[in-house]
């Protein structure tokens, strides 16, 4: 459960989530519909064999169209992808090491199965990650949680997930202040060891528990009964159904017809 670079990651998180405050046709789609389409998209993408490259490419249409229609800038999404890319790179780079059988040639260059599956992993990675990020950027984390709750996830789970997200930034700031305070008074490795660490974490934990008590009191003062009721009721409109149906049909088409290969063959025969 660890994050590679928590500070940068939290900053990006806040930035990407803030796009959800905007308004666009995509933003107005019911969060449940977006959640379902995102899941269908990811399942479709990962359902290919490991040597598949070209057939995956038409799926780019989903993130591209979503970005275009929602007005979410592509920059931060791509930045986040690049941040996470070393992770995918590291995971995939073993394939060329272990799978060296030549499977195809480009001109005179022999391409091994490992490189093909490596490229495939990178494409899958970019597609699945950007779909998840776009879900957040066009919907907002809290609304995704709400949608999950309405789709049958236990309320207790959804409520504490919302509380978690709400206090993520508050506590991260506290941790950041503590780290800064320690760094200002430690030199080389002295004072950076586990003893000081455990005091810091222990202290942060005690303060956090006190805060939780105060939050619970604040909730009780306003009649908390174990549930978070939200004001805006979601309404599933026909547009939302069409959104799901349209994308599902496209994903199914992409999944059953290798469109790039088909186009390529067409171009080749036309060229001859």
């Amino acid at each position: 459960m660890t994050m590679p670079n928590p500070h940068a990651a939290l900053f990006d998180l806040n930035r990407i989530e803030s796009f959800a405050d905007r308004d666009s046709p995509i933003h107005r789609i019911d969060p449940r519909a977006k959640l379902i389409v995102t899941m269908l998209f990811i399942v479709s993408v990962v359902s290919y064999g490991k040597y598949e490259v070209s057939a995956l490419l038409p799926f780019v249409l989903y993130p591209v169209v979503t970005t275009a229609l929602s007005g979410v800038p592509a920059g931060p999404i791509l930045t986040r992808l690049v941040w996470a890319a070393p992770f995918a790179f590291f995971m995939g780079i073993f394939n060329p090491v272990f799978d060296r059988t030549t499977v195809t040639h480009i001109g005179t260059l022999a391409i091994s199965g490992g490189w093909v599956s490596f490229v495939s992993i990178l494409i899958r990675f970019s597609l699945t990650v950007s779909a998840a990020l776009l879900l957040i950027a066009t919907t907002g984390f809290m609304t995704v949680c709400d949608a999950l709750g309405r789709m049958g996830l236990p309320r207790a789970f959804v409520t504490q997930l919302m509380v978690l997200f709400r206090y993520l930034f508050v506590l991260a700031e506290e941790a950041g202040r503590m780290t800064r305070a320690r760094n200002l008074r430690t030199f080389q490795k002295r004072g950076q060891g586990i003893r000081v660490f455990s005091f810091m974490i222990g202290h942060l934990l005690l303060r956090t528990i006190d805060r939780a008590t105060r939050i619970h009191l604040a909730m009780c003062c306003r009649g908390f009964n174990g549930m978070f009721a939200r004001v805006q009721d979601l309404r599933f409109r026909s547009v939302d159904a069409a959104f799901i149906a349209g994308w599902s049909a496209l994903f199914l088409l992409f999944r059953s017809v290798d469109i790039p290969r088909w186009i390529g063959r067409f171009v080749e025969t036309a060229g001859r």
Partner: protein
Amino acid sequence: MHMADALISPAVGAGMWAVTASIAAYSARNVTRHVEDSRVPLMGVLGAFVFAAQMINFSIPATGSSGHLGGGMLLAILLGPQAAFLVIASILVVQALFFADGGLLALGCNIFNMGFFPAFIGYPWIYKTMAGDGSNATKRFWAILVAAVVSLQLGAFAVVLETTASGISELPFGTFVLLMQPIHLAIGIVEGIATAAVVAIVWKARPEIVVGTSTADLRPTGNLKPVLVGLGVAAVLTAGVVSWFASSHPDGLEWSIAGVTGKEELEAPETGVHGVFSHIQRWTAFMPDYNFKPEAEAAPAANKEKAEEATWPAIEPGTSLAGIIGSIITLMVALGIGYVLRIWSRKTT
């Protein structure tokens, strides 16, 4: 040790979702029934705390590297198994949605690997058995250490099994096991020591926080039945889904092919990775059970590859050029559509 969407097959992803969902449903029911409402805000805030705590590092003597708290075992000790499982699940949901750590499909795997073992194995069966009510500091220290190590070992092994079953990555099973388990032994020790140190401080300052959960017997003995039934149903479901996929994707079940999950809390030194690997390779070559392909004996491996090629007619020399041309055109068309849509949506709003 996050698994990623890009590395798992839908069968494994769906199966583990089913397993995780049944444990989560059981836990949520248990939390709302048995624990007063105050636990729900506490759970959420502690989840945020784990994120914050992970931002604080400490240096590990004599290694030059630094470690931090994972949090799973600490949550189990503070909240008990069911609530801790839900909090760990929430942390992973946030990570999957934002940090590209794991992914939505891999979420089921990740929650199981990192949540089930500390919450339902390490805490109730190891920590509680060894530490009792936890009042003896030495006993408590060792109990936490062993529980953390065992939980992480089991989790790491589950990662290996899941990636192997998915068959997207090429790392051989034996190599993968030998890579994952020692790394997670080290991570487990760091996690155990850090958790024990934090628990000791909380115990001293505010004993009532930890004692509350320690004295109550939260071991899910009487309630174990629904868990087992849920797991059974989920497992049957998984088997069904997997076999259904296996029939349509014969090589989706290549148990000989494994993947690696990625950068770890304790990074193996980047240099010399290949040296380490060739060493591990040589070692595992003596383990006949694992379908390992030593490079020196390329012949049988090549045969196998041919068999694979046969199932993937797409990759044939003549057609690759068409594929590349088609791919470029597809990408250009997709980007073109995006460009037109963006201009159009700017005009309409």
